[in-house]
């Protein structure tokens, strides 16, 4: 992924650094030559719900580009959780999966709060959910904000609900 989207934010929260700069196209389709030039140190290949044969195909793709540093270091990771690309209540889990792969040596797993649980009142029906940006004053938490729909009609009756990732690395400097 490029910059300026929630996947890039989650990657940053998980202590990763995108090889593509901020302001680049959000979801570019880049070929292998560009990959070789970008020199990624680790690759998180997201294959949500992919069948085994699709995973095998992805592995064949990476195996055929031996000069990419991530392949030399054996750091191509395949994630197959269904929710990987959903900008929904699992974003915290996504950041956690990323952090596990990117910092396997770190004993301290990032503590995540799936944002949907932040403000949500249990009696609220889901379709009335109104999303807003998370705000917190706790500096240990890096906040990701992403575009959500706003349902103005129901806003007054249900109140705002945060739906965003807030993941803290216990030692952010180490990342």
């Amino acid at each position, binding site marked *: 992924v490029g910059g300026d989207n929630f996947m890039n934010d989650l990657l940053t929260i998980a202590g990763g650094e995108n090889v593509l700069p901020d302001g680049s196209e959000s*979801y570019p389709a880049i070929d292998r030559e560009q990959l070789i030039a970008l020199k990624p140190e680790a690759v998180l290949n997201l294959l949500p719900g992919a*069948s085994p044969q699709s995973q095998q*195909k992805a592995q*064949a793709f990476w195996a055929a580009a031996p000069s990419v540093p991530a392949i030399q270091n054996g750091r191509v990771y395949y994630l197959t959780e269904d929710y990987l*690309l959903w900008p929904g209540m699992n974003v915290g889990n996504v950041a956690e999966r990323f952090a596990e792969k990117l910092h396997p040596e770190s004993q301290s797993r990032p503590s995540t709060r799936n944002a949907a649980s932040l403000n949500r009142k249990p009696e609220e029906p889901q379709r009335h959910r109104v999303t807003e940006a998370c705000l917190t004053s706790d500096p240990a938490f890096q906040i990701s904000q992403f575009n959500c729909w706003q349902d103005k009609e129901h806003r007054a009756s249900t109140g705002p609900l945060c739906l965003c990732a807030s993941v803290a690395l216990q030692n952010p400097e180490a990342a």
Partner: protein
Amino acid sequence: VTASRWSPARLAISIALGIVVSAILATLCLLVGSTGSVGWPANRDVLSERLDIVLLASLVGAALASAGVVYQAILRNPLADPYLLGVSTGATLFAYLWELPAATALLAVIGGQGQYLGQQAFAFLGALVSVAIVFLLASRRGRLEPVTLLLVGVIVNAVNGAIFLLLNAVVKDPATPGGPLALLVGGLQQTLPAGHRLAAAVCVAIGWAVMLYLAGALHAAGLSDSEASALGVRIHRLRWAALVVASLVTAAAVSVSGPIGFVGLICPHLARLAVGNDPRRLLPLATALGAGLLAAADAAARVLARPGAAGTTLPVGVLTGLVGGPFFLLLLLRGRNER
């Protein structure tokens, strides 16, 4: 337009010329990359990367253009292209089926030994199944009539496309880049095992030799059925042979590239401008043109992908469609004005 008599020596010369010209073009295509660098790549990996893609583009272009010559001749229809008989949509549909989790068990059984049958092999199978259905439905008492074939082909294409979209709606894939919709527009695959490339190349090479062998009879088949028969051409048998071989060649190309549009339609017409309507002359030139043009189109797609420009590698099918369509119209209108 035909100037002098056709002879095997001329054939050999035109084949040699075609190889040389497309080799020069292919070498030029090696010089441009998707990172914006121009010149001979310093990195060996980058070189082999570009070599792979240029060779594949040449193979696919050559296959589509030569199949296009044969389809246009045997169906007596200048608008015939290699995708008319359901090959492309059959391959696309099966390539999509391959990705679905429901196919896992089946693919493991066919593939055996913990390996899954590859997507390209499955797409090839799909192309053959689809074109076999077209032949089955279109043949009457063992004979194929061009008009029936075209209609059945159009309908099978439409049904395949509808099944594809129906599956896509039912499965509800997220619309990710490189997802199922990317299969609908042709692009050169970068995940091909060497074996698949080799299999496709062998299939195209054998098919091409057979098509060249049939080219003389195809020239006569451009006349009406009765005239061709009077010239000693067994027209019904020829039609079967030519269509089956051209479909195999197309299937081999489509299974490694997806449906890349317009190459199979335009290259025969371009070649026709130069050497006239004789398939024996047309086939070598159109093949070389197809190889060169698709390699060039792919190189152009890579240049357009420079991070500064678009960032995204365009599927080459987008480019051939965008450039090929208007260009074809231009040819058509110019021809009309001259008449």
